[in-house]
């Protein structure tokens, strides 16, 4: 309504002057920048910065659900620090992020190299490789949980009938196994994104470079290491940054796959914070637990951004 009305009025001379004034104003880089950045920044401030500050305040109080509590200083943080479950959760998170990222990178790179070749059904294969990435995590995690189920596991069936095992493997019933299962599922889910992004990176590399190297007698591995890899490095770093952030604060996968069990051995920081903050209603402690993720992520990103800038500068 207002848009239409405005357009109708625009015909009037006075309005025309005003619009001209607006355009002139937008010619200034500063004004245009402000105008362009405002919508995004407003949303981010309103829905991230402001709640973030509130969450910071929560973490310093004894707030419980339905009870605002009072200022307790760093008590929530020290309690978390001395909490053995939190310590396990933190170690798990690092373990999970580290291995999942390594696998996603290695396998994603390999897959990207394969997909970069010409073969029949290329389009459909490329599209289907993205499926794990696009299905909602909670839903695919349920499918995996069903595959790992102690009583019904199809994996056990396969391995048993191939004669590899005589009794079932404790996929989710042993803490260490369950953690590796989570790594596998996360890799499965995240690998396509790595592969497609790296594939995009590969396509920017001119084939001439490879031919030149091949003429010089360089083997495939050598060519990858000395031609492809250095050129892919910036892209790789960006993907790794995003992946580390997502994996480190992952919640859905563990929530569905193990719920943090058996015996609290598979909690991640996010799932444990959720259990404390939400299930037990200790909002202050939950906020403090979640906040432990922030400095780690911050450090990772800071280093990587700095590195990127250095690469950019060269």
């Amino acid at each position: 309504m207002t848009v239409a009305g405005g357009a109708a009025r625009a015909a009037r001379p006075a309005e025309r002057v005003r619009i001209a004034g607006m355009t002139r104003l937008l010619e200034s880089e500063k004004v245009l920048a402000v105008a362009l950045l405002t919508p995004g920044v407003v949303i981010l401030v309103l829905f991230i910065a402001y709640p973030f500050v509130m969450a910071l305040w929560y973490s310093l109080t004894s707030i419980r659900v339905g009870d605002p509590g009072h200022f307790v200083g760093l008590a929530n943080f020290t309690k978390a620090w001395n909490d053995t479950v939190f310590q396990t959760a933190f170690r798990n998170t690092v373990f999970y992020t580290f291995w999942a990222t390594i696998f996603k990178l290695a396998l994603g790179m390999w897959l990207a190299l394969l997909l970069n070749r010409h073969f029949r059904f290329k389009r459909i294969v490329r599209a289907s490789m993205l499926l794990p990435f696009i299905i909602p995590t909670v839903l695919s995690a349920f499918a995996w949980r069903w595959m790992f189920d102690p009583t019904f596991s199809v994996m056990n069936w396969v391995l048993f009938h191939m004669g590899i095992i005589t009794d079932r493997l404790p996929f989710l019933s042993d803490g260490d196994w369950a953690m590796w299962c989570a790594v596998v599922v996360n890799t499965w889910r995240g690998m396509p994104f790595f592969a497609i992004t790296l594939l995009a990176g590969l396509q920017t590399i001119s084939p001439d470079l490879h031919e030149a190297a091949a003429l010089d007698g360089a083997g495939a591995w050598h060519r990858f290491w000395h031609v492809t890899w250095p050129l892919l490095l910036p892209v790789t770093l960006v993907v790794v940054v995003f992946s580390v952030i997502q994996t480190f604060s992952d919640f859905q996968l563990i929530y569905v796959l193990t719920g943090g069990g058996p015996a609290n051995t598979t909690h991640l920081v996010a799932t444990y914070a959720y259990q404390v903050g939400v299930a037990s209603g200790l909002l202050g402690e939950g906020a403090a637990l979640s906040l432990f993720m922030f400095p780690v992520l911050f450090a990772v990103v800071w280093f990587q951004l700095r590195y990127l800038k250095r690469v950019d500068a060269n």
Partner: protein
Amino acid sequence: MKRRKFLKAAGASGLAGILTSHRAPVFAQANTVHILRWNDFVPAADKVLREVFAPEVQKALGLKLNVETVNANDLPARATAAIQSGNGPDIIMLLNNLPHLYSSAAVDVSNLAADIAKAGGGIYKPAEQLNTVGGKWVSLPWSLVPALIAYRKSWFDEVGAKSFPKTWKEYHEVGKKLKAAKHPIGQTLGNTFGDAPTFTYPLLWSFGGQEVDAKGKVVLDSKETIESVRFMAQFWKDAHDEGGLAWDDSNNNRAFLSGDISASLNGASIYVAALNGADKFKTEKGAPLHTDILHAPLPGGPKGTHAYHTAFNHMVMKYSKNAKGATEFLAWAHKKENYEKWFVVQKGFATGPTREWEKHAMWNNDPVMLPFKTAPQAQSRLMGFAGQPDKKAAEAWNKYVVTVMYAQACSGKMKPEEAVKWAAGELGKIYT
């Protein structure tokens, strides 16, 4: 082109529909009651709420009843968010002693509780403890889902157990033979809300262990507790399906129904599922599975026999703009003639909040369900024993401290003594 036009039109009307849909409740709010409950295991019971209660409430009280059901594990998240944001369902179902956790957000329903008690010959004592804080009723007990061991009669017979073992020691012996016959006992020790704590707490108590003393001092690290953990670790190895460490509340149902395990602590859901799917679930001899299922209470230990049954309560929320309507609805729903409609479809899976319901004719229908009738009376202790089932007990319960203690010893990750020490330490941080 045509298709695009259609999509556009559908998009526009759908968008308008959805965007305006939130306005409807605003003026309808005065006479709408939004109730949030778990997804009932007995789906027919949810159907009663939606298809029988809703129209009748509309007629009787002029209330529009909006029933929402979610996975029980997600209830606390929804309650927390609703209370913090002061916006959400008018009535929220809370399990066990969670009403203590959310008491500050509750409307006082003491009068209503008194009416229900009077009409029904008294509310069970444990239910009173779970739902009152400082002498005030903060929520109303709706039902109790007793946890009993469902077991395969024929398999127990085969190993020479003519009746269900009365003590842990006998159960251990029988279990050994069952596992040797490839029919292990199934029990979850995972982080899950129902079947795990309803097993581990009574086990602890029957050996004489307790979380705290009457004054709230942590006394878990005792000879008795260690004894119970040591027993369980051995029992686990000898008689249980070791996959149980990864189970949630549903795994044992599936394992039992598929003939993988011989016994499991559970609500009546295994039996009810076998009953409803008599053609699907068969014994290895081809008979309907339900004819081979019986129920028994947990065995006893050196310090008696104990049980804990999962309690389902309704809290009227203080933030609700229609607390009056919500209270009226609960009063209506607790009336005998109305409650009964919900009660009978449960077939005994859930028992009523008052003694009165033990007398109901439904119990005569099926002798296999009979042990559930009086199960609530056996509920001797609550979480946080020998203290109160208060906020702290709820925190310990929600963090699965007791369950994890057993799980750690059973998985071999810790020695029994270490597991107990760890759990006592965790309790110590909660009871400060």
